[in-house]
C-alpha cells in the first residue's frame, strides 16, 4: 500500500476520532440537559472543539499527503450535519486550510519549525493553539457574517468559538502527542 495513501488514511481516522469524541460530548451534554442546541448549531461554538487540533496535528505530522483524508472527513461531516451548500464549502476549506495557514506562518516566519510535536514545549503548543483559534474563529466569523448565514449575535459567536477552539485544539494536540510518545510513533 502506498505511503501517501496510508498518510491520508491515518489523517482520516485521526480527524474522525476527534469528531467522534466531540459529538459524543455534545450528545452527552444534551442528554444531561446541559446544552440544548437542537442538533448542531454552527452559530454557537462548542467549548471543546477537538477537530481543530486534529486537523493541525495531521498537517504537522503528515504534511500535504494527509490533506485528501482531511478533506474527505470534513466533507462527510458537513454532509452528516446537513449544512447549506455555501456553508458546506466554506466550512470544509476553513477546517482544512486554516491550520495549514497558521502552521505555515509559524514556519515561514521562523518562529517554530513544528517538525513534530514531540520536540516542542507545551507553551509552544499553547501558542500555536491560540494562533490556530484566532485564524479559525476569524475566518469562520467573516464567512458566516459576510454571507448573512447567521442567527446569533457577533459577541455570542466569537465568545463561544474562540475559547472553544483554543481549549479543544490544545487538549487534542497534547493528548495526541502523549499517545505518540507512549506508542513510539514517529514523524511520517
Amino acid at each position, binding site marked *: 500500500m502506498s505511503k501517501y495513501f496510508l498518510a491520508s488514511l491515518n489523517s482520516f481516522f485521526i480527524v474522525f476520532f476527534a469528531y467522534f469524541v466531540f459529538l459524543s460530548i455534545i450528545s452527552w451534554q444534551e442528554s444531561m440537559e446541559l446544552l440544548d442546541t437542537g442538533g448542531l448549531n454552527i452559530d454557537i461554538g462548542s467549548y471543546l472543539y477537538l477537530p481543530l487540533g486534529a486537523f493541525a496535528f495531521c498537517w504537522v505530522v503528515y504534511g500535504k499527503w494527509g490533506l485528501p483524508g482531511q478533506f474527505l472527513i470534513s466533507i462527510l461531516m458537513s454532509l452528516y450535519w446537513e449544512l447549506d451548500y455555501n456553508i458546506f464549502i466554506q466550512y470544509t476549506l476553513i477546517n482544512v486550510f486554516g491550520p495549514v495557514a497558521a502552521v505555515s506562518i509559524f514556519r515561514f516566519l521562523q518562529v517554530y519549525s513544528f517538525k513534530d510535536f514531540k520536540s516542542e514545549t507545551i507553551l509552544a503548543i499553547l501558542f500555536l493553539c491560540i494562533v490556530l483559534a484566532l485564524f479559525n474563529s476569524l475566518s469562520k466569523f467573516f464567512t458566516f457574517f459576510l454571507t448573512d448565514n447567521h442567527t446569533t449575535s*457577533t459577541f455570542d459567536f466569537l465568545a463561544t468559538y474562540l475559547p472553544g477552539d483554543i481549549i479543544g485544539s490544545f487538549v487534542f494536540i497534547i493528548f495526541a502527542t502523549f499517545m505518540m510518545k507512549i506508542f513510539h510513533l514517529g514523524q511520517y
Partner: protein
Amino acid sequence: MNILKNNINAFLLVFVSILVSVFFGTLIENFKSLIFLAFGAKILALLLWGVYVIPGIFLAKVMQYLFFTNFDPNLEMVISLAAIATITPVVMMTMMKISNAGNLFKLENINFRHIIFFIIITAMLSALLKHMYMLSDIEFAHTAAVVMLEALFGQLFGGLLFVYVASKFAQPIYQIIRKLKFV
C-alpha cells in the same frame, strides 16, 4: 526623566501617525483607515522604548477615540478601547517571550520575521477584542463582519508598512538630520 521623554516621543509618534492616517489616508466610512499607520507606530514605539511608554501610547489612543471616531463614544468606552489597544501588543510580546518564540523586549539580535509575526497576531487579537467589546453596543452602517474586516486589514497593512519603512529609512533620515544639525 528619560522615561518621561520616551513617553512624550511615543505619544507624538502615535498621535502624528493617527493624524496622517485620518487626514491623508484612505479614510473609509468607519473609524479606521485601510492603511492605519498608528498601529505600526504603536508597535515601533514599544519595540524602541520598551513597555515603559504604555502611558504615552494610551494617551494617544484616548485622543484618537475621543476625536477621530464616527460613532459617539462615552468615556468608559474610550478608556476601554484605548486600554485594549495598548495592552494587547504587550500581552503578545510577553506571550512570545514566555513561549520562547522571540524576545521582543530587547531590540538587539532580533529577527525581523518575528516582528512581522508579532504584527500579524497582534492585529488579529486587537481587532477581535475591540470589536467583541464594541459591536454589542454600537450600530454601524455596515455589518459587523465588514467593520471588523476593515479594521483588521487596516491594522495589518498599516503595521507592516510602518515598521518596514521605519526600519528601512529611519537610520538614513536620522543621519541627514544630524548633518543638518537639527539634533
